[in-house]
Structure formats: C-alpha cells, structure tokens
C-alpha cells in the first residue's frame, strides 16, 4: 500500500527515474509542442481562423446598421413574417441580429466572395451555428464581432442558435443562401 504511505525514502526526489517514464515524458512533451505550434502555424498558413475583431455596440446602434443594409440590398422576402432576404455585394459589411428567438435578416451570399459578417445579440447570449457546415461562434450582447467569411460551396444553409436562451431556444433557426 505504498501510494497511501509516505515515500520509502526520505529524499524521494533524489531517486532515479525509470526509463519507461523518461521516454514517455519526452514523447508526450514533443506531442504537446507539436499541438502548440499547430495553432500559430494555422494562423499563418491556414484559411480558417476566427477573427478577434470586436467593437462595443448597443442594440439600437446595431439595429440601425442592420436596417440600413436591409433597405439597400433586400431582394425578396420569405415566410409569412416577411423576413427580408438581403443580397449584399462582395466585401460588404453584413449585419446579422440574434434575438429572442430569431435571426434577422436572411443573407444570400456568393460562392468564393468574402464578406465582413457582424454578429451581436440583442438580449441574452446566443449561438451562431452554421449547418451543415458546423461552424460555431458565440454571440454576446454588447459586442459587435466581425468575422470575415468566404463561403466555398453553394447551397442552402441553416443558422441554428446553440446557446440556451430561454423557452423558445429550440425554435431559433434561420436560413442562409449561397449562390
């Protein structure tokens, strides 16, 4: 029973270490270093890095910008609630509102074009989960998070809220088109 007894030698830290432990520590440490370097490496050579560009905002300010975008670039509306479908030009600043319990408006983007997507929450915390691509970003009230996105496949995507936001959480889903 000796892990529950005091070490058998008073100067236990002077005891030599078995080879199996040293070899494993070296292997594990090397692996940890590789995992460490993967992250900066991907920032330099990879194409999928989450932007950290963030601004303080308020619901009123953000809603005004979103409304301005909707007024300029709406191409049609969808569903009984007449949710505008916005087709912004490439490179544009695009605003997506997350609120109880919907995303607004619907975006229609072009394959291979880059957009500056602004995300904020109007009330509680929400989640931006792009399906079936499975890209997931936290959306916080008071913060305008600017994510530069480049869709690489055409299709109809869904935006699902994946942060619990109250009793209507499971109905908070919207659409995004890539043409």
């Amino acid at each position, binding site marked *: 029973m000796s892990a529950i007894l005091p070490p058998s030698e008073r100067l236990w830290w002077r*005891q030599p*270490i*078995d080879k199996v432990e040293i070899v494993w520590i070296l292997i594990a440490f090397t692996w940890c270093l590789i995992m460490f370097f993967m992250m900066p490496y991907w920032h330099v050579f990879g194409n999928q890095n*989450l932007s950290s560009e963030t601004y303080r905002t308020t619901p009123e300010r953000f809603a005004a910008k979103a409304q301005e975008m909707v007024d300029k670039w709406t191409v049609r509306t969808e569903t009984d609630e007449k*949710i505008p479908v916005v087709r912004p030009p490439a490179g544009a600043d695009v605003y997506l509102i997350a609120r109880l319990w919907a995303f607004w408006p619907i975006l229609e983007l072009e394959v291979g074009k880059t957009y500056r997507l602004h995300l904020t929450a109007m009330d509680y*915390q929400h989640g931006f989960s792009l399906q079936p691509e*499975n890209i997931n970003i936290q959306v916080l009230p*008071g913060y305008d998070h600017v994510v*530069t996105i480049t869709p690489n496949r055409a299709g109809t995507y869904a935006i699902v809220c994946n942060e619990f936001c109250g009793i209507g959480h499971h109905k908070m889903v919207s659409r995004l088109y890539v043409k």
Partner: protein
Amino acid sequence: MATAELFRTCPRTGLQYHKSAEALIKWNAVVAVVWLLVGGLLAVLILLTRWQAVHLLGAESFYLLLTAHGLDMLAFWIIFFEIAVLYFCGSTLLRSRLATPRWAWAGFWLMLVGAVLNNVAVFRGDSTVMFTSYVPLPANPMFYLGLILFAVGALIGCFVFLGTLVVARAERTYEGSIPLVVFGALTAAIIAIFTIASGAIILIPTFLWSVGYITTIDPLMYRTIWWGFGHSSQQINVAAHVAVWYAIAAIVFGAKPMSERVSRVAFLLYILFLQLASAHHLLADPGLSTEWKVFNTSYAMYLAVLASMVHGLTVPGSIEVAQRAKGYTKGLFEWIRKAPWSNPSFSGMFLSLLVFGFLGGISGVMMGTEQLNMLIHNTIYVPGHFHATVVGGTTLAFMALTYFLIPTLFRREVIMPGLAKWQPYLFGLGMAVFALALMGAGTLGVPRRSWDITFAGAPLPYEFPGAAWLMLGIMGVSGLVAVIGGAAYILITVGSLLWGKPVEAPGYGPERSVLKMPVATALTGHGHGAGFAAPGTFVFALVFLAAFVLYYFVNWKYLSTVWGLS
C-alpha cells in the same frame, strides 16, 4: 485537548479512523450519494427527452430539469464526495485527528443548505438558466445565494483539510513526506480554493445584480471569471480522481508509485496550469485576442495535458510493476489479463482511467485547440466530452473507491456482490458509448441544451441528417445502460449501509499509532533507472498516442474544408 481524541483501527486495512473525522466522512459521502440519486432520476427524464424518437418531457420541464441535473451532479454530488475524500486523505491516511471538526460541520451544513436553496430556486421554475447561468439570463436571487453558501461551505472544508495537514505535521503522526495520494488530495484542495474564489468573485456581484443593486454585468466578463469557477471545479475532480486511481492501485495491488518525483511533479503541473485551461470555453467568443486564447489553451493547458499523460502511464505502470513482482511476467500483457477484473474497485478504477483518457482526454484537447473549437463549440459534443471526463472518469472512480470504503469506513459487508461485480461495467461501458454517441451527434452539428432538433413550429426549420438521429438513438440506449449501472451503485451502497452484515471491529480508544515510512527496498525495487519496468503499459500508451494523433489531425483535415474564415 488531544488527549480526548478517540480513534479506532480497521482490522482489515490497518487504517486508523479519528471518531470526529469518521462521522464527517460518512455524512459527506452519504449526502453526496443522495445528490447522485436526485441527479440520476433527472438524467433518465432528460435522456428520454433528448432521445428525439421518444421525446418524453415538454420544453419547459426539460430545460428546468436539465438545469437541476447539471447542478446536482457537477456541483453537489461531486463536491460533497470530494470533501469526504479530503477528510479521508487528511485524517485517516495521515492517522491524524481532524482539525476543528466544528468548523467542518459548519461547512457541511452551509453546503447542504446552499444546495437545497439552489434546488428550491430551480424547481420553483424561475431559475431555468442552466448550470452556467450566463447573464443576462435572469435567475431568482435564491439560485445564486444557494451557490454562494454552498461554495463558502466547501471552502471551509478545504481549509479544515489544510488545517489537518498542519496538525498532522505538528503532532508528528507520520514520518517523512506525506503519501502521494494525500499530495494529490492537496492538489485538489488548492485548485478548489482557486475555483471557489473565482466563483465568489463572479457570483456575489451576480447575486447583487439579481436583487437590483447592480444594473449590468458584462456578459464577457461573466464568462471569463465564471469559467474560472465552472471549469476549474472540474479540475478539482481530475486531481481528486487521479489521487483515487493511485489509492486503488495501492490498495488492490500494493502498487508503489513508479517514481514519487514524476508523479508529484505531474500534480504540481496541475496546480500551475490546469486552471488556465478554463480559457478554452472562450475560444469562440468575441472580444478576446487570438494571442490570449492561444497562450492559455496551449502553453498552459498542454503542460496540464502532459501531466495527465504522465499519470496515464504511471498509474497502470505501477500496477504492472506490482503484478510483475508477483510473478505475472509472461509476455507483455499477462499482468493485466490476470488482474482482478471481478473486483469492482479495480474494474471501476481501470475503466475510469480508460474512459477518461481515451474519450475525455482526447476530445478535450481537440476542443481546446483554438481553431478546432469552432467545429464543436456548444454542440452536443461538449456534453459528450464532459460525460466522459466527469461521469466515466470521476464518478466511476468514486464509485470504485466506495466499494473499498463500505467495509472499512461504514463497517458493513457489501451486499449483492454479484451485482457489484457487474456494476462498473454497466456504468462505465454504458457511459463510454453514450459519450461517443454525443460526440458523434455533435460532429454532425446537433446543438446542446436543445429540446427539439426538428425545430417544430419554426418558420424555416432545418433537418439534421439521419445519422444524427441514429446517434441520439444510440445515446438513448447506452444512456439507459449507464442509468441501470448507476441505479445498481445506489442500490448496493444504500443497501449495504442499511442491511449489510456488520463487520466486527474493535471500538474507539485513545490509543493511536504513527504512520511509519515503509522500509526502503534498496535497489532491488523498481524506480532505479536501470530497466524498462513497465513495457506493457508503454505499449498501451503508444496505442493511446496513435489514437490521439490520428483524431487530432482528422479534425484539422476537416477544418481545412470548411468556409474560409479570417
């Protein structure tokens, strides 16, 4: 004062129990199991609701019970049991009297009152905010107050443990250094103090916000500090269950740490780096710089990962060395084939090690990689990960320890030994498949904490692929197997306490003995740097590494195919 202290010695194990400490260990462990029972009943209802084909509860009850399940399991079951483990390690393993039993009882009652208040707030229905209670989602003030009282009680418990270490040293109840298992418990206590302090720093203002004294709490600040509490509390579990692994290896096999130095430095790495890993919850958040995210999750977290990989080798390694010394030397694996697989203390501990390492560990590192995190953030993959770590790892390790504690601490024989033999397999394997199924569903995008993945009633619903439904079905079936294993555990422990045959043991008296250092085995023992003492374990470790590397790069490969993001 020390003259009035009463002790008894367990005839089977030679452990010496201080009367006041014994009562505290028992009551903390019993209350822990009651919370496990409550959380387990909730688990069945939640499971049968998320299993989309069954979909048992309504949305409101589902979210309410999910909030209660998270708190009752992650906070109340585990921390009550951990306080019992701390008192056991501090008092029993060091043969010392417990410092200030009255304070320890005050802590116990605070924890109990806090946990009950918190549950009352949740079950009243106005505090459905999940375990994380992210602001500005509002809960009843009683919700935060309950958590604060619970945390203060647990903090008192940690200081009673530290006080006991001081008493033991001052009264010379042991020779040399504290045993490795106590060192692990000390690690857990230090992490617990950091954790509870973080909890207080954020929950006290949040409580004041809920009663109207503070107008706003910044959501990002809340998340940053809250995770110092929310994730670090899981690090207490890691340190505690690794200590339990070493303890069970010592109890069942007489295993001796391969090297005290390596194992203790690994615990030290936990103290230094593990808490910073809580930053990985914020990888998908706005407002934090990339450098901050990368530093915290790699430089810091990987040194803690290194520590876990070391324990993952040294625990089974010490068992291998002990088994080889007994003559199980044939080939690489005779030592593990001939291990006592029908002893639930051993099988529970070994399954805990495997589930924690292979499922919990690998998925945890994947999630903690800055870019890869985007692929699973807030999907059901996350509960998949922590059911592997906290349930398959910590809870199963605590269950394994219970089988040892029932005869020695509660002085009862374990009832239904046949069922006890199977219990760790039902629970551990059920939980392993359950966790894998959740990870599979999360990889397919299924959100966590969602009542309905069909989005019924939404104007523009999304249809998840059939494979996601299949995963949720597998989750349902394997979850039920785990629930049966959990129910068996509660039946056996509660049954043994009530109806188990009493174990004959001498009564209490003022006599006590000193914990002597074992006689050094000179250079005939292991740990002298000459050989390759645990080749079988090394092969296991390489298999683990291969799985780890493969899974890690498969995720990078997938990431490279998604939309460009910068």
